[in-house]
């Protein structure tokens, strides 16, 4: 009877482990998503991919239609080439669509957003996005902004008004 109890316990232990492993595989690592469900691969060239990583989602109107599978450098053009796999059901993407790298939330992960074009020919296996929009890099934006400020004709006026505004806020009279 004691061995029977032990066998039952070990059996429960094994069942529990298998259940936990399934939980980790399906719920935590999303293994089912990465199972090859078919689809066609398309590529896109980007000047700068920012923080895009493999397995990032590809969306159309915010709905996931595929995943990024590979990111590498094109040895001829010396820019980033992103390979992505699009679901087979999404065969209505015209060849002049734009692929842009977008950011989820303020500092969330980056993904690819597809905005449709108007051409009649559709994307298929091995096609390439002609129009792409690189990731926004914060430092570039700031330096562009500062540079345009410095070269603007009223460059002298902007710094002059800034201390006055700060003083007004400090005095509690106004807010930004």
């Amino acid at each position, binding site marked *: 009877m004691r*061995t029977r*109890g*032990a*066998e039952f*316990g*070990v059996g*429960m*232990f*094994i069942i*529990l*482990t298998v*259940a*936990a*492993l399934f*939980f*980790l*595989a399906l*719920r*935590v*690592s*999303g*293994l089912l*998503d*990465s199972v090859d469900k078919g689809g066609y691969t398309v590529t896109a060239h980007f000047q700068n991919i920012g923080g895009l990583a493999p*397995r*990032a*989602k590809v969306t159309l109107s915010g709905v996931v239609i595929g995943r990024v599978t590979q990111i590498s450098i094109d040895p001829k053009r010396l820019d980033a080439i992103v390979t992505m796999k699009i679901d087979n059901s999404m065969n209505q993407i015209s060849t002049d669509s734009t692929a842009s790298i977008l950011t989820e*939330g*303020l*500092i*969330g*992960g980056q993904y690819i957003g597809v905005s449709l074009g108007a051409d009649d020919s559709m994307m298929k296996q091995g096609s390439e996005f002609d129009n792409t929009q690189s990731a926004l890099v914060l430092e570039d934006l700031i330096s562009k902004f500062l540079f345009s400020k410095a070269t603007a004709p009223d460059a002298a006026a902007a710094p002059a008004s800034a201390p006055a505004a700060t003083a007004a806020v400090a005095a509690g009279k106004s807010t930004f």
Partner: protein
Amino acid sequence: MNAIQRLGRDALDRVGGIGASGIMLARSAIGVPSLSGFGLFTHQMYRVGVLSLLIILVSGLFIGLVLGLQGFTILSKYGSAQALGTMVSLTLVRELGPVITALLFAGRAGSALTAEIGLMKATEQLASMEMIGVDPLRRIVAPRFWAGVISLPMLAIIFSAVGIIGGKMVGVNWLGVDEGSFWNSMQNNVNFSDDILNGVIKSIVFGVVCTWIAVYQGYAAKPTSEGISTATTNTVVYSSLCVLGLDFILTAVMFGGLS
């Protein structure tokens, strides 16, 4: 002169001990695949694995709860509380699952194995087995060794799963992280073969090391009550040190880009 002699003898003893434990591992590990040994193995699985389940479940749950709480307070400072799922799951699956399970296992099951085998030696049960022609390495050591090696990865998997559920309880149900983004960020960032399987490989290595140390310490214990208590302490100390040291090496090889 005496001190130098003692130092040399100590060093020789230690190297000899490593060799003896290796020989013992080889001789006992070979002896498992016999059908009559399966009942012994099941019984040891019950004692080593199933009886450790409770401590693994409870500590896994609480570690998950703490991770959820700490992660939430840190991540919400940077406005990225939705990354909580990634943080909790990667921490548990890669590091805390295998390591804490191995440490608890050394304390809960390893010390018991050492004490049991040590007492068998002190009461000359092992010697009498040899007298009647039963190899104690096969009869006593092998089932315990394999039970430890197999049950530690299983416990680590359960630990990680329970911990993630605990992290979800705190993050989603109490602190109000969005459930969809909790699971979604987890699934986007956890890779089955890179993260989960590497964690399982880690815990298999820890299982071999912990049980090996426990079984050898018991087998080589001085057959006195003091000797058994020293061996039990040594099991826990050596296992913990080996697990933490090996963890660094394994992490460096698996995740640190040192390959």
